[in-house]
């Protein structure tokens, strides 16, 4: 079994959903349950060099982006460039959730930045 850890961005999102969008929250929890059993088959591995090692799982309307700590430790380049502050304390069977994103947010109109 894998243990799931969340960064503050993902934590905020999850807490918000727990209060305001219960069905989405339940969906995400279901996916967390699946990920804790078999994160590799329940997700897609990103292959792009910058994003390599990250995985994405879908929870109905939401996307969950994460890394598996054991995979990360095998990836020396990632460790060198982007080592997490809590890396030493993390068990091998940990999954770190970086982002939970509502798919519909991409439909929002993008404002001009000056």
């Amino acid at each position, binding site marked *: 079994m894998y243990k799931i*850890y969340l960064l503050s961005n993902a934590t905020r999102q999850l807490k918000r959903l727990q209060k305001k969008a219960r069905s989405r929250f339940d969906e995400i929890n279901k996916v967390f349950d699946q990920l804790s059993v078999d994160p590799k088959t329940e997700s897609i*591995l990103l292959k792009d060099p910058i994003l390599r090692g990250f995985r994405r799982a879908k929870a109905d309307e939401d996307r969950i982006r994460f890394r598996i700590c054991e995979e990360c430790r095998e990836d020396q380049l990632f460790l060198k460039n982007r080592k997490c502050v809590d890396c030493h304390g993390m068990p091998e069977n940990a999954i770190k959730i970086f982002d939970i994103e509502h798919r519909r947010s*991409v439909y929002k109109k993008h404002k001009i930045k000056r």
Partner: protein
Amino acid sequence: MGRNDMSIKTSKSGRIFEEKIIDRFLVLFTIHNSTRPIGDTMVQKLTFLSALDMKYQGRKGFNYNFIKLDFGPYSSDLKDDIQVLLNNRAINGHYRVATKLGEYILSNFSHIIDENSIFFEKIENINQQYSHWKSKDLVRYVHRLKNPEHPRFSIHNTRQGSYILRKPKVWRAEREFSLSESDMASLEIYLDPETFHRFFASIEEAKQKPAVELSEVLDSV
């Protein structure tokens, strides 16, 4: 004035998420492949000409609706996508050029270009033919074309706000642009500003703040 000119239409085509990502990738390619830096009017016209050719050949590449405005075919979805690429810093300048990030996206996903070469060849041909033209000459040229939605009328004779080209239907297309799930998962980060900034902020955050176990998060609510 023709019978096709009943009311001002919206050029929003109701694209699904995957179609948006494909469109942004194709627009980025169009800008990068142009023979010179081009303004938004040129991007609109070149995209229209590529989309038109693709539609005639039964290919579903671009997913824009174009309506007629003063300067010819115009799509507000395309305008939004240009803004998205600017916000994401994949393109820059008043006359648009691909940035290093834009070039990185195109080179790292070059297999998408290979797998969908018929779409990109079409854009290359259109760019080669027209992107060195002056904007006003291209506007004039496009005005003289027949309105693909109502071939009895030229675009010039089409009423302002009427449809000129609609998003291709899936069931009519002989060939669709294809994108793997893995590529989509990466491109949705690169080609959506909000996702891009939040995701990379999370990566930075991981270097500074420890993560919290799920059970603790749930208990704290």
